[in-house]
Structures are given as structure tokens and as C-alpha cells.
């Protein structure tokens, strides 16, 4: 049974360590504590590998849940550090000094969710959506179908025909 290390429990207000599997747990923390907590987990507790950073839009609660998935190679355990950031004017402290690939994740989150990371390198450069002017598309309120119908007009000449009627017209026009 894994427990929260004493130094982390003392220094930070953290939720319970939720065990998903023997090799996977998650930990809820306050957003303001994330950079220091990640640094401590990396330097003192062996979680040196950053697997990914992502956000889940909990629109009903008005928050984004940010997940930083870390991995400890020594004891083969992954730990998802989760924090909540308000959806309105979403801003999170940048952690790009901890891992070299972190700024790319932050750049992606800025583009796709609209979460800003002030000070993160190239955070305002487009990542996959060059020239995008709509709302960040990974937000739940972004409707892909509505966007598609609004942006791309239906091409004429693509209407379908009822196969039975069409064949009758072709083969037996006199019968109609």
C-alpha cells in the first residue's frame, strides 16, 4: 500500500493518494503547489520521467483538470499529479524549467484549451492549428459538427439517389 511521503504531506495540501493499479496512482493538489511539488517528486522521490501533461475539460464544474503524469523507473510506478484550474481566464504557472519537453505540452494546452502558461517558451506560437481564429477546439463547448457546417459549405452535386428508383429510371424509363 503506497502512502504519501511525509515531506509532501507536511509541505502541501494534498488529497488522498488514489491507487488505480499497483503501478499507477493519482494525487490531487492545489494548482499553486504544482511546480514545487513536481520538482520535489522529481528530485527527491525518483519521479524523473514526465510521460505527458494534459487537461480534461470539466465544463459542468467550470474547471480544467490538469494531469501531470510522472514515472519512477526505479520502482516502476506512475503518479498522476492533478490540479484544477478555473475555465474563465485559465492561467497556470509554467513548469518548463523542470523538463525540456514541458513547454511543448504547455504550448499545446494554450492552443487547444486556452490555458495560458505565462513565461513558457513559444507558448503563443501555433502548434497544430496554424491560423486558427475560433475558440480553443478541445473545449467541450466547441461543436465540431456546427463548426464544420458553418465553415465548409456543402458541395453541390453530391446528393444521393434512391438506388431502386434510380435503376428503374435508367433501365425501364418507359415503365415510369
Amino acid at each position, binding site marked *: 500500500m503506497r502512502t504519501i511521503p511525509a515531506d509532501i504531506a507536511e509541505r502541501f495540501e494534498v488529497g488522498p493518494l488514489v491507487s488505480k493499479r499497483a503501478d499507477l496512482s493519482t494525487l490531487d493538489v492545489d494548482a499553486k503547489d504544482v511546480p514545487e511539488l513536481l520538482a520535489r517528486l522529481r528530485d527527491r522521490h525518483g519521479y524523473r520521467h514526465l510521460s505527458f501533461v*494534459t487537461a480534461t475539460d470539466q465544463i459542468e464544474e467550470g474547471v480544467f483538470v490538469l494531469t501531470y503524469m510522472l514515472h519512477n523507473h526505479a520502482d516502476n510506478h506512475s503518479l498522476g499529479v492533478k490540479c484544477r484550474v478555473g475555465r474563465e481566464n485559465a492561467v497556470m504557472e509554467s513548469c518548463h524549467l523542470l523538463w525540456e519537453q514541458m513547454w511543448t*505540452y504547455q504550448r499545446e494546452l494554450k492552443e487547444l484549451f486556452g490555458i495560458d502558461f505565462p513565461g513558457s517558451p513559444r507558448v503563443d506560437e501555433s502548434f497544430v492549428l496554424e491560423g486558427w481564429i475560433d475558440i480553443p477546439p478541445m473545449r467541450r463547448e466547441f461543436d465540431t459538427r456546427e463548426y464544420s457546417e458553418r465553415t465548409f459549405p456543402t458541395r453541390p452535386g453530391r446528393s444521393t439517389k434512391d438506388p431502386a428508383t434510380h435503376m428503374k429510371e435508367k433501365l425501364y424509363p418507359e415503365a415510369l
Partner: protein
Amino acid sequence: MFEGVKGFFPPPYDPKEPVDFGSGKFLKMWQGPQHPGITGNMSLELAIAGDTVYDCKTHVGYLHRGFEKLMERRLWMQNFPLVCRIAVPEPDFNEYCYAAAIEELAGVEVPEKAKWLRNLTLEMIRLASYLMWIGGQAGAFGHGTIIQWSATMRDYVLDLFEELSGGRIYHMYIIPGGVRSDLPEGWKAHALEVMDTIEKNLDDIELVMFHNAVFKLRAKGLGVIPKDWIDRYGITGPNARAAGFRRDLRKDQPYLVYDKLDFDYVTAEGSDAYDRAKVRLGEMYQAIDLIRQMLARMPSGGEFKTALPNPLHWKIPAGETYVKSECTRGEYGFYVVSDGSDKPRRVVVRGPSYTHAVSVMETLAKGQNIADVAGLMVSLHTYPPEIER
């Protein structure tokens, strides 16, 4: 002393020199998205002076299809035709990770036979993907023969997939609860025959490519990844193992039936393009060996799938999980969040190229000769759709 001509030659590479296009010394050059020396649909924005790369920026998004967003709008089972398309060379890792995540959240048990069949397909696609890669790696150094051999060998593996699943590229063979079918009659014998053919061809490839003076001269010392970068940049897979790291999810956190198979880490010490290629070649032989082991030890009978609820009304209990596997490029995982409904709340694909093709590539390219950029990128084995998914 006559010194006039020296002015035509670029000065030695100085990594601290700022790139100023107004100076007339630098030239911006795009490698990709349509370029034989690029892996997939991405591009590198290079700043060069003479033959030397001073700056590199990776651009992705040319093949962005919004998989993660699309998955939020579809039923759990409807996403199966989508997930395999995230990685053309190795769709089965997507199928496995997505299926395993659903099974974990829904508490679905997978029959033993299905685990063996899943494991078999994962090693087959590993071999097929490496065969595709080795052709690209050789081609990047001007070695056009290898791709002709390896593409043929890959096609033999795809033949096996076609017999097994009906599909050559996208198989949709691994489904929640198991796999779609058992091995067809006579398939085992055919598979063993194909493994013998590929093994013999790999011997030829090793001889022609790895003992080739040009390949050695160009790949040795190219793109050396220092050991302290492995954790700093989140490098996994053969790129980490070529730096001497004994890390392989198949050994460290065995899934499916890897704990019942005999194999070891394939590592090297040089951490350059040549050693990365040697590691991958070693893992191709290893994949053949694992396929033979599985065909010999796999239970002949038994169920290959578990009955599932009606997929049109299947609600997965609320929760979250992260399932990962060792693909040819490293850690490949699916982070899945369910809100208890019939559609995923969030699906995140973690591909190793995310760091290999962006942070690592952008750093390693600086100071390289422009002619080596393609070889360097292929040696990192990058694949853009898993970045822009």
C-alpha cells in the same frame, strides 16, 4: 598570402551566434512537409549558414484530424476504427492500449488465449514497423537497396495480418474483451515460414548496411544523445536503450504474456544514430524470436474473447486510467477518462515522438550538416500523427 577565397567559405560553427536573417549569412530552409527526407507529414524549419544548421523548429499539424476530439463524440466502441489510424506503421499498439483501458475501467476480464494472440500481433507489428523504418534509415544515407528488401519483407508480415484480420494496414483485431478471431488454419506454418525468410533477409541487411563504410562514417557520431538527456527530455524506447539504459516496458512492467517469454533488453552505449540502428536491428531479431516462442507456447484452444454488453448502449463506469505499452519508438500510452456515460470524456494519446521529434530533434539538429538532418530524424524514429493527434 592569398586569402581572398576564404571569404566564400562559411566561418566555423558557433552555437552562440544569434540567427539574424538580415545579415545575409543565414538562409531559411524548409525540410518537409513534402520531402523524401522527412518522416511523415511534418516539416523542419531550418536556419542554415553554409552547410551547417544553426536553428531548427519542428512543425506539425499537416495531418491533424482531431482524433482526441472526435473520440469524445463517439460511442466507446465506435472509436475503434479511429484509434488504429493514429499510427499507420503500428496501429495495434493503439488498439491494445485503448482496449486495455476500457477493460480496466469496465472490469472486463480477457481470456488467456486472447492475451497470447494480442501479444503475437504486437510483436508482428513491431517487426513490420522496424522493417519500414530500416528502409527509411538506409535511404536517408543514400542506400536505396535496403528499402526494396525491407518493404518486401514488411509486405510478407502484412500478408499474415491480412490472413488473420482481413486488413493489411489497419487491423482492428484487438477489441475490448479479447480479439476478433482465432488463428486461421495453416496460419502458424505460414508465419514460421515468413519468420525464416525475414531472418535470412535481416542477415543480408546487416551485412550490406551495418558493415558499409558510408553508413558507418555518416551514422557513427551523428546525433549523440547524452545520458543526462534521457530523463530531462523524457526519451524512451530504443533511443534510451542505445544510450545504455535498461528500460523496456515489456520487461519492467510486463503486460499481456511478456512475463512468460524469454528475452532481454537490447542496449548499446554509443547513443548515436549507428547504435540506435543497431538496437533496432537487435529488436527485429528479438521480435522474430518472440513470435516463434509464442507460436510454440500459445494454448491451442480456449476462448479468445469475452461477451460484452450491447456496444450501442455500453456505459463505462466513471474513472480514469493510463495504460501504456512499449512500441517501437518507446512509451506509447492512452490516458482515458470516463464520466460514466456511453462516450469517453477524454482520451489522450501519449506518443514517444512528442518529445523525440520536437524537443530532442530541435536541439540535436543544431550544428549538424544539412545533409545529415534526414538521417538524424529517421534515427530518432519519429512519427508526427502521434504528436498532432
